[in-house]
């Protein structure tokens, strides 16, 4: 029988950082991931990680305020204070583990500017910061001899007496189901970009962790807050980092104007992401776009600078579009990139289900509120990944392991067998592509009652079709047809939570911009939406609200 003190679902930055911490604390730790750790989507973070380093003149409260303003005052300020004040140590620690951050002439860590901040406090490794940190955390995992269930797919959480005590998981390479018991489970399973199309997200970002926790009774908080990144490539949705603008790139419309000067006179191209994406979409909607895009212009930075500091961007532009950034501007447009919403946790990563913690993109602490600042996601993963492990280590001192019964495993076996036995009918891919396109239409950069109702209808349609999805592949070994069908169930839950949360919020705030209610309404809506799984309610969702924690920054009008 598989049994551990701590089981971490997901091996990206949050999961591996939690694993390293729990291992250091002397616990029996395992990580379970549907892909090898170095394939995790943390790889795709390009531009950097924010940290106010107080030993060189920055102050953490400055970063906290930028984060809170960026969140359009929806972030919980106690959580932001923790993130900002722990950021310096978190980044220094990564450097000491071996991350090759870029440095200044003095041999100390160097920075670049990022959006929503006037101070340059983003630490980086070219345009591969996420990948560089992920590989170093994996090195640390190897150093500590971490147990990894590699290419194992979690199908269910095991809940006994209201506590989370393990998971049921499918070993993808053999097709066999197993129970893995643990005194505590940390969910670090990443985002859900695949609920939309196109998206910058990897094919693996299907909201598994969100849906698993949701079904166990944890609310998803602020799910309407979906970030559209301002610079993604047309057709494929591949990301071009904000680092380009951080290093001085311009955004141009079809008339060659730097339109951001008009929308954000002080921050220009480096306003918050929601602001820049709306500005771009406005230009496009008003006829100053180029085939639905605007232009990102790096030419004035020069070839050497581009290749040195933004090498990966050049690689992507050349390989995928055949555009040399030193010679030609590249067409970009807003694209789904990140989900601010997530499993509601406290500042220690704990959810309402004892024994279940969450960290990283699948969690909502909440430090990003209605709009995340670029380079705050990596910070979020390492700060709250570590904290969740520390707290989980305390928690397990007072609890026993689960029963070890085969009941959960057998229930999952029966469920999957019935899925495998269905007669060929609906194909998961057709359902996914339909849903994802409808979600992008309905829950866009701009949205209104009608568009969101459209997305809700699409999700209903999807849920009607779900029982008809059949598995063409009847084999056991590496049956991705089965995995994708199970992921489709997770994505439908996440989509459901998103549309109901979006329809609940009757104001415009951060990424949730309604063209039919264009103002922020602090009097009625300075609060979080909480979407609960509730089979008795229409569509199986119940949306409640809860207050936002304000410590010392009173909400004011947000101007860039």
């Amino acid at each position, binding site marked *: 029988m598989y049994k551990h003190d701590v089981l971490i679902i997901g091996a990206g930055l949050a999961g591996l950082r939690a694993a390293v911490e729990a291992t250091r604390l002397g616990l029996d730790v395992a990580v379970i991931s549907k*892909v090898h750790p*170095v394939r995790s989507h943390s790889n795709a973070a390009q531009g950097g990680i924010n940290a106010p380093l107080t030993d060189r003149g920055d102050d953490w409260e400055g970063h906290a305020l930028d984060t809170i303003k960026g969140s359009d005052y929806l972030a919980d300020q106690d959580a932001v204070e923790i993130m900002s004040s722990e950021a310096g140590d978190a980044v*220094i620690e990564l450097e000491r583990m071996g991350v090759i951050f870029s440095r200044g002439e003095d041999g*100390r860590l160097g920075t670049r500017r990022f959006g929503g901040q006037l101070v340059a406090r983003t630490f980086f490794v*070219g345009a591969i910061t996420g990948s560089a940190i992920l590989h*170093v955390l994996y090195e640390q995992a190897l150093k500590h001899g971490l147990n990894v269930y590699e290419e194992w797919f979690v199908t269910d959480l095991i809940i006994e007496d209201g506590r989370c005590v393990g998971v049921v998981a499918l070993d993808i390479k053999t097709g066999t189901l197993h129970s893995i018991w643990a005194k505590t489970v940390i969910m670090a399973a990443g985002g859900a970009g695949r609920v939309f199309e196109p998206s910058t997200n990897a094919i693996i970002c299907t909201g598994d962790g969100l849906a698993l926790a949701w079904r166990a009774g944890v609310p998803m908080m602020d799910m309407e807050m979906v970030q559209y990144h301002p610079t993604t490539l047309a057709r494929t949705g591949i990301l071009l980092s904000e680092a380009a603008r951080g290093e001085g790139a311009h955004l141009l419309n079809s008339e060659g104007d730097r339109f951001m000067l008009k929308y954000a006179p002080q921050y220009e191209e480096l306003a918050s992401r929601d602001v820049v994406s709306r500005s771009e979409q406005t230009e496009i909607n008003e006829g100053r776009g180029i085939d639905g895009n605007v232009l990102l212009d790096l030419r004035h930075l020069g070839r050497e600078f581009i290749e040195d500091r933004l090498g990966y961007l050049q*690689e992507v532009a050349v390989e995928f579009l055949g555009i040399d950034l030193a010679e030609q501007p590249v067409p970009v447009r807003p694209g789904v990139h990140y989900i601010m919403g997530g499993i509601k946790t406290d500042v220690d990563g704990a959810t309402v289900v004892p024994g279940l913690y969450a960290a990283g993109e699948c969690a909502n602490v909440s430090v990003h509120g209605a709009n995340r600042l670029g380079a705050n996601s990596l910070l979020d993963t390492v700060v709250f990944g570590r904290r969740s492990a520390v707290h989980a280590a305390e928690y397990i001192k007072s609890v026993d392991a689960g029963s070890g019964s085969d009941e959960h495993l057998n229930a999952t076996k029966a469920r999957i067998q019935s899925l495998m036995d269905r007669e060929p009918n609906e194909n998961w*891919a057709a359902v996914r592509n339909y849903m994802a396109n409808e979600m992008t239409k309905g829950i866009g950069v701009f949205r209104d009652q009608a568009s969101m109702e459209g997305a809700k209808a699409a999700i209903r349609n999807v849920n009607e079709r779900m029982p008809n999805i059949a598995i*063409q592949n009847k084999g*056991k070994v590496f049956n991705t047809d089965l995995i994708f069908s199970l992921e489709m169930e997770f994505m439908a839950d996440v989509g459901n939570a998103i549309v109901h949360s979006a329809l609940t919020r009757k104001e415009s705030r951060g990424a949730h911009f309604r063209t039919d209610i264009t103002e922020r309404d602090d009097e009625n809506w300075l609060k979080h939406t909480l979407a609960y799984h509730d089979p008795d309610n229409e569509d199986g969702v119940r949306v409640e609200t809860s207050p936002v924690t304000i410590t010392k920054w009173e909400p004011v009008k947000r101007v860039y």
Partner: protein
Amino acid sequence: MNSKLKVSRFDPETMGSGQRRWDEFEMDLHPSATVLDALIQIREEVDGTLALRCACRASICGSCGMRVNGEAKLVCKTRIADVTEEGTTIVIEPMGNHGIIKDLVVSLDPFFDKVRQVDPYLQPDEEPEQGEFVVNNDSMENLLTAMNCIMCGACVSDCTVLEVDEAFIGPAALAKAWRFVEDPRDDQRDERLKELNEVEGGIWDCTRCFKCVEVCPKDVAPMDRIMEMRDMAIEAGNRNTSGYRHTESFSKSVKKHGRLDEARLAVESAGYTNIPRLIDLAEIGVKSVLKGKMPPIVPHKADENEKITRIFERVESERNT
């Protein structure tokens, strides 16, 4: 555009080890579509049993290494138009030198075992009292070549040494080792070099075929990293290897004769006191004589070989100043 793909299939549940089947697919694709786009379309619309790995679609996660027309590539950054012409068929197979799990999915366990073998983590004797390690930025930027490695396995797939010698640590793991040898924050440089110099399958087993440099999708150039470690290992005093003796004998012979003295090279590489190896060589020598392949005992000199000697002397004096 209209494209034809021929895909290698293997199902461990119905086929024996080493067997395979070829499936052909004809499809209409966007002109800038990638090989991965095509495979995903097959998986989603034609044949849900096709197994492959992929995730980021943006050449950063390293999942989708495969052989396209016989050469290892990341299929997410391989455009159909770049690997085919009208009317030709694109051939897609799993990577080489890795065991096949199913269709295009290979086992990377041996790959990561070898990465583990080089102690792939920073080992400083002590950490700074406060803040980060203070080191020169150029020394950090130097490491980026190897940090670009995404562990896709393409170099291992097409490595000609691994094809015949499973013990070779291989290009990816050795590039990873280089990254720590060159890191000024690491205090195990000498120990690492000594180990890589002596261990079976270490830095001297590369045959410099350039294949890993050619196929690496991230310009890591593993072979160059291996050659640099050979130099570093020698400079650090690791001279008791056939690799070092081979290098020395090679250069001594060319300097003196303007030509390679193959007979002496073999003996000197083995080392004059390496009796078991010399006995092996004697056997090879006898066979060579019988087949008329024995190199001359007294080497022929190149015409005007003194000019070559002068080149050597000049390079050596420049290096010493």
